[in-house]
């Protein structure tokens, strides 16, 4: 458990090293589909440490997992806005908020909530993000204007395809859950 925390913390610090951060942010698709998810993953890895330190807090305020997953959805949706990605590059305060919100307000609550959620809720969350990602994908591919001032249109289109591919991955998973009964293969 301690090891996971160390790995998470190391990942977090690594991502925050200025040259690493500025390299990842120089490419739009890496910024959104690698740096941001890795920050969430850093949070996921650090979560057990916080759960152990403050067991009452999570038990009391995130009893059925809904508050945590809502917080996760809100934070992720916020970082999907074209503007926030732009401002992370031009405003230091927004950049700092990114490094705090994604691991600690999205990663940590996701891990605490996920086990508490029913299968239905889990699939609901995945379906929600599939729809959102499909929407974002089509938006970035087909919108004729440049949505982010810091990135070229060609990068915007690449980002759109990355969203669509991620959505396809989630659709495959949802179909698997819907049609395959694992017990048949045991």
């Amino acid at each position: 458990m301690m090891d996971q925390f160390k790995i998470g913390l190391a990942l977090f610090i690594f991502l925050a090293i200025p040259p690493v951060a500025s390299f990842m942010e120089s490419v739009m698709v890496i910024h959104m589909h690698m740096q941001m998810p890795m920050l969430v993953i850093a949070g996921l890895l650090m979560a057990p440490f916080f759960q152990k330190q403050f067991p009452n807090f999570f038990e009391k305020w995130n009893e059925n997992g809904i508050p945590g997953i809502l917080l996760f959805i809100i934070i992720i949706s916020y970082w999907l806005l074209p503007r926030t990605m732009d401002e992370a590059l031009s405003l230091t305060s927004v950049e700092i908020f990114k490094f705090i919100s994604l691991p600690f307000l999205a990663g940590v609550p996701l891990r605490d909530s996920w086990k508490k959620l029913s299968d239905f809720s889990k699939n609901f969350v995945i379906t929600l993000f599939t729809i959102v990602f499909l929407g974002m994908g089509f938006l970035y591919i087909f919108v004729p204007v440049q949505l982010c001032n810091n990135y070229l249109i060609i990068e915007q289109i690449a980002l759109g395809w990355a969203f669509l591919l991620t959505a396809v991955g989630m659709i495959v998973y949802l179909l698997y859950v819907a049609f395959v009964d694992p017990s048949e293969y045991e």
Partner: protein
Amino acid sequence: MKKLEHNTIAIIVVLLFGCVLFYVGTDGFRAFTAETARVNQLIKEKPKFPDVTFEDSFGRKYSFSEFENKYVFITFFYTACTTVCIQLEVNMGKVYDMLPEQYIDEDIVFLSISFDPEKDDPATLSRYKDYFNSDGETWRMATIPDQKELDSLLQEFGVIVIPDGKGHFAHNSAFYIVDKQGFLTNVLDYRDPETAADVVKTILENDKGE
């Protein structure tokens, strides 16, 4: 029951936090892209046109005071551009044509500023202006040879120009209106010349009425 209450409170707090976050992050649900935020901010701040030296299509050199006591209708472009700039300049020409003739030159000057001084010398600008029937006088095409001065203007007016390394630039576009005192007063959508012409007409009429 007590525990469930905590859970419910947590949900409400999280939702409230989400509303505040999105409200603040989008300036009250008005700006979802940095470009909209930039335009809103510019109109609020009204920056003054910095002191720069232009070189126009006739090779004349002058500062912004050349346009003293006139409104200036500005766009930013570069001549090697094959996409947005053409539409931008065509629409600028439309606004020019839609304005009553009496205002042109007397009260308002059109100015296309190239942010590519390296390539856009007077000869290139002169050739380019002919494509758009610009006379070079009431609708001038100019560049700012001093890169530092150019950068200060782009910075002040929030124009973001990213060179792609192959002689082209990614950039944001708009119509900028600077008033008689040299302050930026309005930023308009370049894709809608009709509205822009109406706005300019109203500004000029009000100015005459005063």
